């Protein structure tokens, strides 16, 4: 885990007067999956473009395998899936795959790419005739076909059905297990929770939280209590240490930092209380909380 494949050191990127990336420090190690989370316009895509050498940093340094991201030798170790790839519509899937595989020294075989990306039956189809989800699978195949040591995936599962997403997740996990580093941006927090070793939350061009999924989640102490109860949600909301309380049909949902004390009081005040559930905050709540605090 010690080998750093991608390193941002105090990177600054400005667009005119606005600063898109404001002192970004980030390291990605071999064999880890880093999920880059953040609201739209936070700088995730700009950060990826800097890592790929598509944009030039105005300050700080970006190193890809210890080299400039412009070095072809460095880029031979990466695979890329951007949000819009715009692959030629008149070429067939098999042709696109052959063309991309040829750019790498040790690509996976065509059959392996078909299996890993779920391209069965698509190889003789023209790219422009495919559905959006099928096109995403082709883009994924092109990203992984060169046996990359670092893979950039920018919102990879947008528009995929569940089966295709499962295939992609399975391949992503296998690549990581094999030692490939992956930088993933996603809007789907469950995707980050399911796949990521580390999470970095980026807001206004800065990392505002980073760590394992558990660490980031732990920054949010509150828990969610749900139960069937006849208590007045408005009254519960006024209790000390309750952040919010809402009624959802016959249930009430209480968010609190002191779950044990609140549960005790709920049970004491409502004899008929049932179906009690207590949940830790998910990454989604942590994410909302962290980005709100940073704003």
């Amino acid at each position, binding site marked *: 885990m010690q080998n750093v494949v991608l390193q941002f050191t105090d990177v600054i990127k400005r667009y005119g007067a606005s600063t898109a990336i404001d002192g970004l420090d980030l390291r990605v190690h071999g064999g880890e999956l880093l999920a880059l989370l953040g609201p739209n316009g936070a700088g995730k895509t700009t950060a990826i473009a800097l890592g790929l050498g598509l944009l030039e940093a105005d300050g700080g340094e970006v190193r890809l395998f210890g080299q400039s991201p412009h070095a072809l030798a460095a880029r031979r170790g990466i695979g*890329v899936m951007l949000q819009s790839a715009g692959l030629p519509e008149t070429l067939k899937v098999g042709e696109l795959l052959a063309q991309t595989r040829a750019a790498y020294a040790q690509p996976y075989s065509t059959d392996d790419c078909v299996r890993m990306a779920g391209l069965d039956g698509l190889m003789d189809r023209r790219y422009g005739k495919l559905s959006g989800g099928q096109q995403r699978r082709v883009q994924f195949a092109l990203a992984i076909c060169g046996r990359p040591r670092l893979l950039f995936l920018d919102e990879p599962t947008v528009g995929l059905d569940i089966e295709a997403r499962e295939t992609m997740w399975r391949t992503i996990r296998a690549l990581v297990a094999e030692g490939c580093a992956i930088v993933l941006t996603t809007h789907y927090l469950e995707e980050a929770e399911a796949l990521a070793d580390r999470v970095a939350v980026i807001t206004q061009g800065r990392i505002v939280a980073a760590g394992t999924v558990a660490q980031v989640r732990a920054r949010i102490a509150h828990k969610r209590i749900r139960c069937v109860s006849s208590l007045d949600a408005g009254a519960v909301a006024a209790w000390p240490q309750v952040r919010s309380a809402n009624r959802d049909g016959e249930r009430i949902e209480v968010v609190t930092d002191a779950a044990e004390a609140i549960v005790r009081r709920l049970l004491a005040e409502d004899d008929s209380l049932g179906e009690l559930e207590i949940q830790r905050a998910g990454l989604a709540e942590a994410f909302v909380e962290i980005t709100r605090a940073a704003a």
Partner: protein
Amino acid sequence: MSSVAAILPASSASSSPNLLRCHLIEARHEFLRLLRTPMFCIPTLVFPAMFYLLFGVLMNRGHNAGPFDMATYMLAGYGAFGVMAPGLFGFGVSVATDRDRGWLQWRRAMPLPPGAYLVAKLAMAMLFAAIIFVILATIAITVAGVHLPLTAWAQLFAVDVLGVLPFCAIGLFVGSAVGAQAAPAIINLIYLPLSFLSGLWLPLSAMPAFLREIAPLWPAYHLGQLAYAAVGQPSTGSTLSHVAALAVVTVAFLVPARRRLARG
């Protein structure tokens, strides 16, 4: 993870990709893309042949005034007109489209050999120019009754195939500057007036004096003069001056186009 071995096959030993193979695949795919774009290949291949058949054969009643042999003169003129298209459209429209849709950006991010894209396009523009030459030459020999020495055929072939280059540069410049929606219109606005004003449709001698005088401003004029000279038809200016003019045009459009494309 027990399924890793099943999902990820072992690597085979080899050090760096075969660049020649990359370029060949790229060129082949560029050819396939053009072939599968009827909007490109039908006008490009059919128009010069159609015009030549119409004006050089069917409507040519043997009015060969003085040194002009109309069938030969038009073979050269429509050849020059024809080979402008693969350069202008092959670069202009497709580069604009590839840039607009993000394909060029994706290519820059991936380790694809940087020059392969333009080299493939260049090779295909020259191939299409050669095909246009062959089509027109076939019409010339079989139905237009054109007789030329082998050296003249060889010269015309060279003019047609190399003459595509300045128009590739102009196309690349347009493709690097405007969006995919605007590119076809702009290229047509360049292509058709340029060929007319350069005397590729009508001899310049049949045009108003003003148009004759400004003709040397147009790159297609210089290509036309080289083509007429190659087949022994009346032309003005020295070969060297025309070649120099075309070289200047090529560099003048290529340099800013490359700069724009490198910036993304």
